[in-house]
């Protein structure tokens, strides 16, 4: 089984849990429950592969990313990065490891400091990790990064507001690459961009992944984009992974009823295909994570649900090339 093959794995997440406490009371706050944003998620990233994580809002995909970077408190499980469990490391022990893992954010407007020049934004990670701003190494690296993401050298002296969304996302990518990370986490990197710009950024990410042999965790809700860029894909629903499979396997033979519903719901940009498609709409909406349903989380919306689904929570089990968490597969 590939999940235990740690030889070539860069990152192995085992039974990851992120629970946020819920408090009540005005003066005396007491904990009345917890939101299980991520509840027992396991997956492996092999070196050089792109792993896509898809799901609807609130399914825990972004929280998973933040947990891997240790930007939220991990409630349980292991995060094995380059052979070392980082789930329990404190901030000072994490600091040198942060060079190895970097993030590209969704919002190209909110994630760049408006008072800093583009060159300084891109070079800041170098400064944080001990490279002097005056050194020739610094200047050369910033120039190289600007070129690498397809910006022009004279743009280094300008401010973020002078750039369009697509260009700002290139700046964010350059900043993430500054320290030569092994792992690049992209959280919805193209969803805030116009359609005609998305393709440019997707191409750039794919080129960089290949040229720099990056391992990429690519998080998005847009199935078409995830399919395009990923080697393997995990589908999340309400804090859990319901299916993991290689790309073609997932799209050609979706096994979990939720995966099938998601694929059905995405309209294809071709009216002839659309006219001939029988749409199976699933009922209802994603329930609140604060009160997840008993048994399988998807059971209230699932066309296949039976009494077992309402009582027992299914676990991920392998079915051919895929792993699926469903009693009825």
């Amino acid at each position: 089984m590939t999940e235990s093959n740690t030889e070539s794995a860069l990152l192995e997440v085992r039974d990851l849990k992120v629970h946020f406490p819920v408090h009540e009371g005005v003066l005396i706050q007491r904990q009345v429950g917890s939101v299980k944003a991520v509840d027992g998620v396991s997956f492996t990233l092999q070196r050089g592969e792109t792993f896509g994580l898809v799901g609807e809002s609130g399914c825990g995909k972004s929280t998973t990313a933040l947990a891997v970077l240790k930007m939220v408190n991990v409630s349980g499980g292991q995060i094995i990065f380059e052979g070392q469990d980082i789930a329990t490391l404190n901030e000072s022990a994490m600091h040198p490891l942060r060079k190895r893992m970097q993030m590209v954010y969704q919002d190209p407007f909110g994630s760049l400091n408006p008072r800093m020049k583009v060159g300084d934004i891109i070079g800041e990670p170098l400064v944080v990790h001990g490279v002097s701003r005056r050194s020739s190494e610094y200047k050369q690296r910033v120039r190289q990064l600007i070129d690498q993401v397809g910006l022009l050298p004279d743009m280094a002296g300008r401010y973020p507001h002078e750039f369009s969304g697509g260009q700002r996302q290139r700046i964010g990518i350059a900043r993430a690459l500054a320290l030569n990370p092994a792992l690049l986490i992209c959280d919805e990197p193209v969803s805030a961009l116009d359609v005609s710009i998305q393709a440019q950024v997707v191409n750039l990410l794919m080129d960089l992944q290949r040229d720099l042999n990056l391992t990429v965790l690519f998080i998005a809700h847009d199935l078409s984009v995830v399919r395009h860029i990923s080697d393997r894909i995990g589908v999340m629903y309400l804090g859990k992974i319901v299916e993991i499979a290689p790309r073609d396997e997932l799209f050609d033979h979706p096994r979990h009823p939720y995966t099938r519903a998601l694929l059905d719901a995405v309209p294809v940009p071709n009216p002839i295909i659309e006219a001939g498609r029988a749409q199976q709409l699933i009922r209802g909406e994603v329930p609140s994570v604060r009160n997840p349903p008993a048994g399988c989380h998807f059971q209230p919306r699932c066309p296949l649900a039976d009494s077992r689904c309402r009582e027992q929570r299914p676990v991920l089990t392998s079915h051919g090339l895929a792993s699926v968490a469903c009693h009825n597969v």
Partner: protein
Amino acid sequence: MSEPLLRVEDLCVSFRTDSGIVRAVDCVSLHVNQGETLAIVGESGSGKSVTALSIMGLVGDSGKINQGRILFDGVDLVALRESAMRKIRGNRIAMIFQEPMSSLNPVLTIGKQVAEPIWLHRKKSWTQAYAEAAELLAKVRIPDARSRLDDYPHHFSGGMRQRVMIAMALACQPKLIIADEPTTALDVTVQAQILALLKDLTRETNAALILITHDLGVVARYADRVAVMYGGRIAETASAADLYANPRHPYTVGLMRSIPSLTSDAGSRLYAIRGQPPDLANLPTGCAFAPRCEWAKDICLRSPPSL
């Protein structure tokens, strides 16, 4: 063919902003027939939402309709006074906004908000309007509708709020519904439910629908005709089937080729339109798309092409 329900002729709208006069809509002409779904496709800043707001008479204080006519059922809406426009807005033309979170009044119950247009425009008694509101909520498939009349918007999920918006839009049996990115804020599985509902209900009442979106997949599934906008102008109009089979404008061609779909060749390089979207305060003198166009000639840079 008989006169269309809505005919927009040479509409120009500009806004005063800090960076100067912005020509958001520049000589746009389009029409919608009764019972038809017209999709307006474009990126942010292409002028699609401003076109919709102009039809609703909602361009606001900083915006100005400089030129053009909007003929709805033979009446020019641009020339109407605000008091006359109020009788049409929400009554015969209804609009559904993108943000179901912020377009409902948070301090009024759902029942009151849905009943209000019925009471206001159709002069029904409040009790009657309230009863009809319950029926409308059931029609947009809100489970247990009657008991939810006294709930506030924050009790509803995003998809449910958008159903409430649709119920409000349908309250006066409008002849034209304008839906501005009605599902952009929603998840895909909910998006499919809402669009299917909208399409069913407009078919039932034979209302015309203007669907504003940036999603070419949504267009393929729901539209009869399409207008593609770029830089405030209409780049191309065609029937939906035609547009996908045979896109003509270089921008449309580029857009079609650049989107990955569930059936495209995964892992390959995507076709990318070069350059950045235009700055509306500084539109090029010629065709707005010319700086990014592979087929641009001298004339494209000098004068804007007409449709």
